[in-house]
């Protein structure tokens, strides 16, 4: 029983991490039709900026996380303004450019700080364990889940209540018609990139807690599962991405524990294939 509880909590934590990456990815694809292969790089930038601020610059963890998130947000905005926007009418080049950034950033991080994993600062408050139904669960799992739930609620409020949220929801349906109502939809693009970058960078910062260390390849590794989550949840649907994140995280943890290592990752892909066969438009019925 305690194993099940531990796997459940860890799976939820992993799912929360996926959601932090996938929510931005989903909004970006839904609104802009951009497959942002550089999204994992944004996570890595957030992770390393947090690690650097905490371990090298000596900031407290509680300042390092906002710092890392801010750096990731700025990186995302610069990426949108100087790389995505000039290539807007050339989707193929856009994909190549984001793939390039997705490869270059980890290489750059490796060049500066080496390929080895760096131990991540663990504040005393978050490094303990909680006892849940007889299982001993690391607190950082709950930190991730709390961050993901908070992000989900904030995004839903933003989408439902604000004018830019309205523009994003409309743009996911029909971008051209949004401009034909006199709205400069490119501002919404930059905003969505900033939100996605902030969420991914926060995921990087909290992922450092979860894994206990940072390494240059972390972001790219997580990106694959984030894409699976986005396709499952339905492109452009934040709630769909949340549901799919939980599913993928849990399936992966349980399958990796009860079957062979690596089969969990495989089972996620099988899950995706089955879902797409049964519901070609993803969980939320949106066009993939």
């Amino acid at each position, binding site marked *: 029983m305690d194993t099940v509880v531990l796997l459940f909590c860890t799976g939820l934590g992993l799912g929360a991490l996926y959601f932090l990456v996938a929510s931005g990815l989903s909004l970006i694809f839904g609104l802009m039709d951009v497959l942002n292969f550089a999204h994992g790089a944004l996570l890595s930038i957030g992770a390393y900026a947090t690690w650097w601020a905490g371990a090298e610059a000596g900031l407290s963890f509680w300042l390092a996380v906002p710092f890392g998130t801010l750096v990731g947000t700025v990186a995302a905005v610069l990426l949108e303004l100087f790389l995505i926007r000039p290539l807007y009418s050339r989707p193929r080049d856009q994909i190549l450019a984001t793939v390039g950034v997705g490869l270059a950033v980890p290489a750059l991080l490796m060049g500066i700080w080496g390929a080895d994993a760096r131990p991540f600062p663990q504040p005393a408050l978050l490094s303990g364990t909680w006892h849940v139904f007889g299982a001993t669960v690391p607190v950082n799992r709950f930190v991730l889940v709390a961050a993901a739930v908070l992000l989900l609620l904030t995004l839903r409020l933003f989408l439902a209540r604000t004018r830019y949220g309205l*523009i994003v*929801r409309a743009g996911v*349906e*029909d971008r*051209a*018609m949004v*401009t*034909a*109502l006199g709205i400069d*939809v490119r501002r919404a693009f930059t905003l969505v990139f900033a939100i996605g970058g902030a969420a991914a960078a926060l995921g990087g910062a909290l992922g450092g807690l979860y894994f206990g260390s940072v390494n240059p390849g972390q972001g790219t590794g997580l990106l694959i599962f984030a894409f699976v989550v986005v396709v499952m949840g339905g492109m452009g649907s934040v709630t769909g991405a949340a549901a799919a994140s939980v599913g993928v995280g849990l399936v992966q943890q349980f399958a990796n524990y009860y079957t062979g290592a690596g089969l969990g990752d495989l089972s996620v892909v099988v899950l995706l294939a089955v879902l797409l066969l049964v519901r070609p438009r993803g969980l939320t019925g949106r066009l993939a």
Partner: protein
Amino acid sequence: MTSSLPSSPSSTPRAAASTSSALEPLLSVRDLRVVIDGLHILHGVDLDVAPAGVTALLGRNGAGKTTTVKAVMGLVPRTGSVRLAGAELSSLPTHLVVRHGIGYAPEDRGIFAGLTVAENLRLAERGARGGEEGGEPDYALVHELFPELKQRAGQLAGTLSGGQQQMVAIGRTLLNRNRLIIADEPTKGLAPKIVSEVAEVLARAAEAVPVLLVEQNLALVRRLAGTCAVLADGRTAHRGDTAELLADEEAARRLLGVGSRHPLAGGPRPAASPATPVVTTEVKP
């Protein structure tokens, strides 16, 4: 966003439209060309929209009517000249074209199905933010013309009937103080009763704002439009008085491919009569 509206001596665009001389077109399109994926869709369209009333854009299926409208809006890459009240729009992105005061109801209605009726309308507000170009959103007018939109404010637009969706599309163009309304086949696929309702609204709207109307329903065109332009194969084939064109059977058949009897032979308000076919028969090329 700073507004780059040419400042008109008369107060509002609406007032300007109804008082300026009939000689000067409100919208003047010259040599408009569109090439999409190497295909030449428009080879030089000339079009003038009268500063008052309805101007019709006619032509057979595939003649380039919708592409012309999209090119004016900047929704497809275009060359040539598009001047609205003296301001050149042909190099502007779509949202700035709109901000010069154009309300656009596209052929497919452009409704956001997952948004409520109220949200669809709210999205169209160009309002007080960034200059006075849009003015305060005129919900009083929209709800007077379409009381149903008020009752159904909370309903998802995707669950509306075709006629109700068209009301949302036209309502969005009336919300702002526009200089020009462009309606692309607003009666397409609607029941005859709804067609006459839409016609009624267009007539009302045209009293205040000039309308460029793309329409296949010639009975409706005859009733609403004073002047017209006819496209054929991506060029302007004819420009002039609507009644004259439709009275000339030979020219109408040649330009529009309509039969000799109806619906041209219909009464003064044939659109309202279910006995008259509302969709014109077209000779396929």
